[in-house]
Structures are given as structure tokens and as C-alpha cells.
């Protein structure tokens, strides 16, 4: 390990280089890839993911005393904003553009061991290393940098859609509900100090926040499962998604974000964070509607206007809008299946045909969709035909069941090409 004292002017130059170096590199490399939109979009996603996760992991490192930054310029909760952004550019798009075929772990290992291992403790007062700093560096690379480079690569190649969407959702979650509130509190005052807040308020707020997150995450899942794309228009869906929570409202992700900001603002007692909900509306009014007109209307000239005419933007319908009836096949000989079908029948599900078919497993099939849903996933999908509350419950189930099946390599089967019953 090298342990030297760098002159103050060298540290200033280093700080400039840590931001301007990656920036210059990404501009040059981005220009080289300008005719490969998926590569550029992958780089952008990697940057956004890294931007969120570097902040989160550095907050953990600072709180644990692994290291701290000595400067007082451009600081956001103890992290210099320029070094933060430079890191997100370097260990995201730059690495992905420079080394498109080398496995990210082989790219990052020499940097962790060679660069950080050698010079990290020589950068005082730019960064002051504490105990266990090396473990902290490894954590930052594992949680922030490694997934960021994978995200760029998978997006460029159009691979691993489920993982891509999961990383985008994770990155967005930290960006929207940790980085943005932190920035707002930096500008307007306030802190994350939950110890000063009433316990009952936190306990009451967390389930509401969880319900908001279910709404948003379910929308992302529906984009992946039914649209075969991500929620980001730069990596769009192949099909118009009108099912699940989208049968109740057009903008579930934006509503989820707006409500989450309000709940977080109430929990931490900061009106300005709650006020960020207005930004969600501003975003919809300014950007999303534009996207709807210039992308969705062009790509789905028949489906989009009909969907939009029947489904509200913000306030969810209580009962879903279902353009084509789905079918739930159940075995009347199986007690629990018959009981569930009876329960559903009593609730008069919208656009759901219940078909008794002896000997069949429980299968849900939507004629406009690319796949069938079985067992717990079929129950969850069927709940989406009852009302908004049950749809949220079904969405929560799907958020657990489908990723587990994906991890086990047991994705729902493709349609068999014939009616279920």
C-alpha cells in the first residue's frame, strides 16, 4: 500500500480529474456509439443506476465510519457531488463503452485491488480512510458499479429483461425516494432523523408506503411480463400494456411516486419532500402526456385511444376496464379451486370467464397476452378482475411469485394456442 502526502494543489487537480476525466471519456465514447441507440441508452441507464446506488452505499460507508470526505464544497450529506457524478459516469457508461466484451467482475477487480488498495489511504484530506474501508469499497463495487455495468451491457444486447427491469426499479427507487428527498432537504432544510419522529407515525406510515411501492413495482412487472419491455420509453415495451394495475389507471408508477413522497414527507415531517408529489404531476403534465402523444399514439393508433378513453390518468377506477375477457380454468373436483371460483363468482369479476374443467390445473389466460399463469399466479391475476383493492393484493402476490419462478427457471408457460376450456 502506498502512503504518501499529496500537495494541496495536486488534490485540487485530482478532484477536477475525477469529474472531468469521466465526463470527457463518456462524451468521446458516446460520440463513437452515437449510431447505436441501445448502447447509448444502456450507458444512460448505467449512469442513473450508479448515481442512485453510489449515493446509497456511500451514506452507509460514511455512517459506518469506513471513510469520510474532507471537503466542504458541493457536499450532499457528506458526499462531494462532483466525485459522486464522476464515479457514476466512470463505473457505468465509460466502463461499458470501453470494454463491451470483458466480464465486468474482471474489469473491476484490478481497480479495487490495484487502485483503491494502493492509493485510497493517501488521499487525505480529499477522502479520509477509516477502519474497514476496504470492505466498504468492495461493497460499493458489488452493489453500485458491477450491476451498473451489467445493466448497460444487457440493455445494449437486449438481454435479461427481468434483471434489467429489476435493476432499473431498484435504481429508480433509491433515486426517487432517497437521493431526491436528500437533495430537497439540502435545499430546503430537514433531515432523515427518524429517531425524533413518533414511533406510531412510522409504524402507521410504513404499510401505506409498502402499498404505494406495490402499485409502482407491479406496473414495472406488468411492463416486463405483458409488454416485454421496461417502463423507460428509451427501452420501450413491444405491446400496449392494459392489464393488472393498468386496467385501473394509466399512470400507476407516477401515482405510486407521488403518494410515496407524500407518505415519506409525513413520516419524516418534511413538507417539502411531500411537495415533491407536485413534481410527479408536473412530470406527467409536461413529459408523460407528450410521450403518450408522440410514442404510444403512433405505435398503437387503435389500442391507445380506446384505452385512454376508458381508463383515468390518476384516480384509479374501482372496477377494472377489461377490453377482452380473460379465462380462468379450474378443476371443480379440487375443493380449494372450486371454493376460489365460487368466491370470485360472488364478486362478479369484470371480464373474467370462469371455466370448470375437470383434471386441469388452475390456469389463467388473457387472450391478448403472451403467456399463461398457473397456481398462485393465476389466483393473483384473477384477483385483478374484482376491484382495485384486490388487484393490489394480487399485484403483491405476483411481485413475489413471478420473480421466484424466474429465479428457479420456472417461468409461466406460453399459451398453448387453444382455448383453455
Amino acid at each position: 500500500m502506498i502512503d504518501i502526502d499529496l500537495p494541496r494543489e495536486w488534490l485540487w487537480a485530482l478532484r477536477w480529474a475525477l469529474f472531468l476525466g469521466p465526463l470527457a471519456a463518456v462524451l468521446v465514447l458516446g460520440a463513437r456509439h452515437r449510431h447505436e441507440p441501445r448502447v447509448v441508452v444502456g450507458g444512460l441507464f448505467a449512469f442513473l443506476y450508479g448515481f442512485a446506488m453510489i449515493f446509497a452505499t456511500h451514506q452507509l460507508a460514511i455512517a459506518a465510519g469506513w471513510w469520510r470526505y474532507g471537503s466542504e464544497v458541493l457536499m450532499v450529506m457528506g458526499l462531494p457531488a462532483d466525485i459522486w457524478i464522476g464515479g457514476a459516469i466512470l463505473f457505468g457508461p465509460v466502463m461499458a463503452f470501453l470494454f463491451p466484451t470483458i466480464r465486468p467482475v474482471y474489469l473491476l477487480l484490478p481497480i479495487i485491488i490495484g487502485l483503491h488498495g494502493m492509493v485510497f489511504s493517501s488521499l487525505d484530506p480529499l477522502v479520509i480512510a477509516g477502519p474497514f474501508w476496504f470492505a466498504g469499497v468492495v461493497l460499493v463495487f458489488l452493489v453500485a458499479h458491477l450491476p451498473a455495468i451489467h445493466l448497460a451491457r444487457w440493455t445494449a444486447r437486449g438481454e435479461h429483461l427481468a434483471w434489467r427491469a429489476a435493476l432499473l426499479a431498484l435504481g429508480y427507487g433509491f433515486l426517487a425516494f432517497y437521493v431526491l428527498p436528500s437533495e430537497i432537504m439540502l435545499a430546503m432544510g430537514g433531515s432523515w432523523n427518524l429517531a425524533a419522529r413518533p414511533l406510531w407515525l412510522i409504524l402507521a406510515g410504513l404499510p401505506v408506503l409498502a402499498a404505494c411501492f406495490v402499485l409502482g413495482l407491479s406496473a414495472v412487472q406488468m411492463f416486463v411480463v405483458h409488454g416485454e419491455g421496461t417502463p423507460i420509453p428509451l427501452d420501450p415495451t413491444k405491446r400496449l400494456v392494459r392489464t393488472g394495475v393498468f386496467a385501473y389507471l394509466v399512470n400507476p408508477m407516477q401515482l405510486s411516486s407521488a403518494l410515496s413522497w407524500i407518505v415519506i414527507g409525513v413520516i419524516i415531517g418534511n413538507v417539502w419532500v411531500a411537495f415533491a408529489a407536485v413534481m410527479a404531476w408536473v412530470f406527467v403534465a409536461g413529459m408523460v402526456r407528450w410521450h403518450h402523444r408522440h410514442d404510444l399514439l403512433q405505435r398503437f393508433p387503435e389500442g391507445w385511444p380506446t384505452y385512454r378513453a376508458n381508463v383515468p390518468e390518476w384516480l384509479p377506477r374501482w372496477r377494472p376496464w377489461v377490453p377482452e375477457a380473460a379465462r380462468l380454468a379450474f378443476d371443480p373436483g379440487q375443493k380449494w379451486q372450486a371454493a376460489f371460483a365460487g368466491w370470485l363468482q360472488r364478486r362478479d369479476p369484470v371480464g373474467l370467464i370462469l371455466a370448470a374443467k375437470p383434471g386441469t390445473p388452475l390456469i389463467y389466460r388473457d387472450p391478448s397476452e403472451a403467456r399463461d399463469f398457473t397456481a398462485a399466479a393465476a389466483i393473483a391475476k384473477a384477483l385483478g378482475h374484482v376491484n382495485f383493492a384486490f388487484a393490489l393484493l394480487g399485484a403483491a402476490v405476483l411481485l413475489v411469485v413471478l420473480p421466484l419462478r424466474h429465479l428457479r427457471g420456472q417461468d409461466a408457460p406460453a399459451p398453448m394456442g387453444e382455448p383453455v376450456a
Partner: protein
Amino acid sequence: MFRLRRSIKLALALVVSSGVLARLVTMVSALAEGDPDQLLAFPLTVIFPAILVGLLLALPATRSREGALMRLGTIIQLALIILLPPLALYLALGLPVVFLVVELFETRLPQPLRDPIVRAVLA
């Protein structure tokens, strides 16, 4: 296709260049007095937004009129970030407002008012 008029582009470039120059002078005089803070903040708060402005000015024409107006709004916001350092964080957080203003301009402003303004800035 829609693009910013050359005169508008030149005016924007002039404003941003003046802002960069003013910030450079301020930074040098602060440094001469022994305060390195502005030097350290310069890349992120001046060079970065100036590069973004350059990129936005160099982009090819847009397919929609709103796209070109959103680009113009973003450039103005970035210019303000350079010119008004005490408000830079607020302006950055308020960037989505640019898109709302453009949307309201396109959908709510009466056509007799809107069209002359658009003709003045877009080619």
C-alpha cells in the same frame, strides 16, 4: 422537422459564454484571495452545464415542435444555473417545470399568441 433558429442559437451561446467567463473571473479572484471553493466547484457548476448546453445546441432537428421547445427550455434553465450560482440547486431540482411550461404553452396558450412566438424561435 424543427430546429432552433441560428440567431437564437447564437444568442444562447453568447449568454452561456458570458456566464462561463463571469464565473471564471469570480473563481480566479476568489482563488487569489486564498479561497479554493469556487475552483473546486467550477467543473460541476460551470463546465458541466456549459457542455450540456453545447450538446443540446449541436443536436439534430427534432421530429416534434414540443421537442425543440423542450430543448430550448432546458438550455435556458442550464444558462440560469451557470448565471445564478446561489439558485443552482433549486433550478436543477425544478427542471421538470420546464417540460410543464412547454406543455402548457403548446396546449393552453391561444394560437394567435403561440404561433408568432414559435416562429420567432424555431425554424
